[in-house]
């Protein structure tokens, strides 16, 4: 069953009276447990599609469903709750909360979910160990390297035990060695926990590890490649 669905989704941006079509009647289904990537050149619409699938924006036409639920029917508060319960995000610029330590950043979503303090601390330590950051929980984001921050971001995305993690250019600011280690980590989490990963990226390191690549061009799906890159 598809965990994420875009049905005839279109998105038009209007700036000073000029309309720009970012997406045009896109149909896409992402199955549970997938490790897939939206690929394509800049301006092809991959980040826009990721935003729509992540309930961060509303489409101009068509509909988006998450776990069978139609997002257009939900209020902003219900969308917040849905993102909290079912989605995890990893951003290109890490976007950790700078006034919180690494552990507090990971605990943030758990606290929103109402998880007890002791349980939060236990799970945050386990997640830090899983992303190979044991002992760095008390460090603030600005005291960490880019790779370490992105690993904290992955741990934060996993903390809410989401069904899907949406990752927008997660390796863009990392050196290739760090990027490879991060992607291996995500692949392990996908295998071990069954978490669905959907990337938006044009980084070959990401694309060669994705088991399905959805190529976009000019706001529409150009082609879909299945299986590992040869």
């Amino acid at each position: 069953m598809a965990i994420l669905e875009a049905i005839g989704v279109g998105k038009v941006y209007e700036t000073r009276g000029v309309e720009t079509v970012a997406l045009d009647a896109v149909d896409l289904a992402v199955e549970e447990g997938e490790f897939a990537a939206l690929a394509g050149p800049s301006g092809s619409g991959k980040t826009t599609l990721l935003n729509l699938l992540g309930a961060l924006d509303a489409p101009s036409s068509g509909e988006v469903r998450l776990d069978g639920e139609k997002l257009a029917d939900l209020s902003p508060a219900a969308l917040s709750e849905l993102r909290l319960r079912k989605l995890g995000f990893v951003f290109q610029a890490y976007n950790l909360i700078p006034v919180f330590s690494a552990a507090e950043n990971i605990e943030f979503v758990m606290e929103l979910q109402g998880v007890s303090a002791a349980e939060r601390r236990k799970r945050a330590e386990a997640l830090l160990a899983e992303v190979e950051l044991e002992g760095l929980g008390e460090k603030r984001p600005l005291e960490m390297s880019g790779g370490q921050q992105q690993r904290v971001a992955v741990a934060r995305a996993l903390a809410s035990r989401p069904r899907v993690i949406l990752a927008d250019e997660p390796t863009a600011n990392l050196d290739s060695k760090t990027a490879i280690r991060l992607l291996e980590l995500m692949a392990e989490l996908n295998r071990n926990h069954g978490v669905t990963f959907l990337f938006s990226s044009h980084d070959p390191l990401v694309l060669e590890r994705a088991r399905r690549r959805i190529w976009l061009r000019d706001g529409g799906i150009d082609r879909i490649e299945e299986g590992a890159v040869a």
Partner: protein
Amino acid sequence: MRLEWRLAWRNVWRNPRRTGLTVAATSFAVFLVIAATALSVGMWDKIIDDSVGMASGHVTLTGPGYLEERTLEQFTYLDDALVARLSADPGVAGFAPRINAFGLLSEADATRGVMLLGVDPLREASVSTLPERVRSGRFLEAGREWEIVLGKRLAQVLGVGVGDAVLVYSVAYSLESAYEIFRVVGTLGLPDPTLERGLALISLDDAQRFFVYGDRVSEVAIRARDASEAGELARGLGAGLDAERVEAHPWQEVMPDLAQSVVLDQAGMYMMLAILVLVVAFGIFNTILMAVLERKREFGVVLALGLPPRSIFRVVYLESIFLAGVGLLVGLMLAIPAVLYLQANPIPLGDGEEIAAAFEMVGAEPVITAKLQASNPVFSSLMILVVALLAALYPALRASRGKPVDVLRSL
């Protein structure tokens, strides 16, 4: 909620310099608002207290029409019933009957027109400071006849001193000529030189005999326990008295010029305080708005992670409450001891200074003092808090109404 508190508290200290400046500005404003109000209240209380001490008390009972005419034709009585009534009133600290009339004083070739004030030597000290202002000789004493106390300058002009006799001439209530020899028993030093040149005190009994006035009096001067309650006291007393015989006037009616000065000065002060509060509002508005704008992306991230928009509103609001609250506490801690110190230790103004002379003109002791009323810090704190909350409204709404995609689109 605990998460919101933590986020707000950490964000407040994200930029300690900016937070410090905002807190300092708020503290300074709180200090100024409390100190300016306390100074104004203290100074005017002192001026009013001293002025009414030289004049007709906080409340004056007179015959109908006395304030307009001020002649012997308008009179009232201090009978036993009124004495009992005033003695029983908890708002009355003291009262004294008086007779006011014009007279001529002469000694040898010198003659001066004066205000003759008939006072009860026993009661006068409970209302006015006149008995304390004796510079030579003594004040009037009960049971002694035809004694007179003169303003120091009046005595100099007439060329008389303690022990000398002066001829007092006037027109009695019966419209007959009234004249009598009085013996000078003392001189008074008064702050207003004009008054010192034109005031002569005789005993109430002598005045009633001299003016053939029976047991009539021009006025009954009343000292209130709380100067600020003068209006209320006058209304209360007036309501229980026979309006055909007696009217109760608060000092504002007896000394309208002084009352007007108080109103004008307070209007100016309130305008200054309003500007000050506006400055604080802009300070907090600016700090919070800047803090919100520079965290636009961060708000988008926490929204994306599932923090409800209302929580973001609360976080921003809590930040402004922290800023205003800390500023308020520091301001209160500085202002209250400073004001209390000034209240206990008034600063005398030097002799000959222009401002000191202005104080003396209205019969007030030339000192800088303050008075802390409980309502002052309470009202000032509430005002600053309300202003801070209003100033934070727009930034808080702006932060909470953002959409996550607005901040992620640029990625």
